[in-house]
């Protein structure tokens, strides 16, 4: 372990934990005001729902509603975090303090990833979930159950995390790819890519059907990709299941890695 640590710190130009930590700290300091305001809004939402519910129906919102709101907030915050923290990174003028900051591209990339994956979603959990839990504890007769427990018990799954991680990496990449009109261009790209992917898949299935590929397959075949662990063994199965599994593997593992490598390359080669 010590040897590994030495190797990491020896080559100062590649990666240093200390510098990466400083970068994360700098992001916090730089965004302190916005983060504080966001935290206040997050904390106010459960209070607002409790007041609204109490005034209209005599009790707060149901656990399901609050849990779903928390889930949506965490998901949205997870996905928008690159825009929230690093919207200006590749701006030809405003991005200069970032690119000229004495730290390696790898350190900047890691610091950005850590911040995006952890900070904003955690804020939603802490401030929305925390205040919701506090309200439940203080006013058990007005609302029952904890949104935070609902979220972790019913919503946090490997599947959901992988999909969100893919989306985050795609947004992260778009944030570095587009210089102006990032949000619009990112949404437009998502729509276009989804449409193209749907057209290709439908065309492929129709083509396979025209070749009689599905003729020998029973209508009763039940395909459930979730029965398979991501890296689990799959043997002599139906080719459709295997294809589906490979597609899932591509979408949840290969594609995020491609996006991450792409983002790193964009950071490394960006000209200002």
């Amino acid at each position: 372990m010590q040897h590994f640590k030495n190797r990491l710190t020896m080559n100062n130009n590649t990666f240093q934990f200390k510098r990466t930590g400083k970068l994360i700290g700098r992001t916090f300091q730089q965004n302190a005001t916005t983060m504080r305001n966001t935290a206040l809004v997050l904390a106010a939402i459960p209070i607002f729902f409790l007041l609204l519910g109490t005034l209209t129906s005599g009790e707060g919102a149901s656990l399901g509603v609050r849990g779903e709101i928390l889930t949506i907030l965490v998901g949205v915050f997870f996905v928008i975090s690159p825009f929230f923290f690093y919207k200006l990174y590749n701006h030809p003028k405003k991005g200069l303090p970032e690119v000229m900051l004495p730290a390696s591209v790898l350190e900047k990339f890691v610091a950005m990833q850590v911040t995006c994956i952890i900070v904003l979603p955690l804020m939603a959990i802490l401030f929305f979930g925390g205040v919701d839990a506090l309200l439940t504890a203080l006013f058990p007769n007005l609302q029952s159950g904890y949104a935070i427990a609902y979220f972790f018990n019913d919503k946090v799954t490997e599947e959901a995390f992988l999909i969100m991680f893919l989306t985050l990496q795609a947004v992260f990449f778009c944030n570095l790819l587009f210089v102006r009109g990032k949000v619009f261009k990112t949404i437009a790209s998502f729509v276009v890519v989804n449409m193209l992917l749907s057209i290709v898949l439908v065309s492929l299935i129709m083509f396979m059907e025209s070749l009689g590929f599905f003729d020998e397959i029973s209508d009763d075949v039940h395909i459930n990709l979730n029965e398979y662990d991501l890296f689990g063994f799959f043997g002599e199965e139906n080719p459709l299941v295997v294809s589906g599994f490979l597609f899932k593997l591509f979408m949840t593992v290969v594609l995020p890695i491609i996006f991450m490598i792409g983002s790193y390359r964009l950071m490394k080669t960006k000209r200002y």
Partner: protein
Amino acid sequence: MNMVKMQLLSFRYGKKDVLNDISMRLEPGKIYGLLGENGVGKTTLLKVIAGLQKPWNGSCSVFGENPFNRTPSFLSRIYYLPEELEYIQNDYSIRFFAKINGPFYPNFDNEKFEAILKEFAVEGDKKLNSLSHGQTKKGAIAFALATNVDLLLMDEPSNGLDIPSKTLFRRIIVEYVSDNTCTLISTHQVRDLENLIDPIIILDNKAVLMNASLEEISEKLYFGLHSTIPTQALYSEPVPGGYLCVMENDDLGESKVNLEALFNATMQHKKRMQELFVANAAETSAPSLRPE
């Protein structure tokens, strides 16, 4: 010892050539003035040195590294102060900017930063997006100097400063730039940097026309006031009391280099100036000229 070494460096934006076969060396302990008309590639040259742009051809080496790699060891020894201040006009103060960015520079000196802020009379706690352009620029200059880097690149630093501030700027640069720092200041307002810069680099469309110290320039050129324009004058302009003339110095003695006249003379006699100073570069170990 060269801090910056360029060899046959070329750069273009799309199909437009900006820099063409530039060769140049910069040494520590000097304040270089990079002069040139608008659009000749001064900013591009600074950006290539800072690692913000990649040359199309040729090489640029800074501290022996390729600047475009933007390694921490390179970035911690260089500071680029751009002309436009969009990068710094944020919802926080210059003190806050220094607080979050200063720790990344190993030689950052907060006392020096505060001293320069005080001399410039900058309101250090006022939000940068509410300061005037001049005040913001002074704050940015204060931070740049306080980093104590080995290579300081300043793009048109005197733009936006009022006359007293320009004088103060020259004094602060002389007072606070470290002895071993190589400073490269680009400007198209040559008078702003009078008595500050030495050596002088004059950049023209696609070429370095001159890279010489003031001593070398005054050895080769004579700047004098004449009642009539001498036939051998390379450049002349009417001034109260006669004509300010620039001539080749054929035993005319020493004279004070007038930067604006030098610049205009160079623009009018590019080839001759290159010949004069290319020959000079070959004789001395001073900053070199193309071809290397």
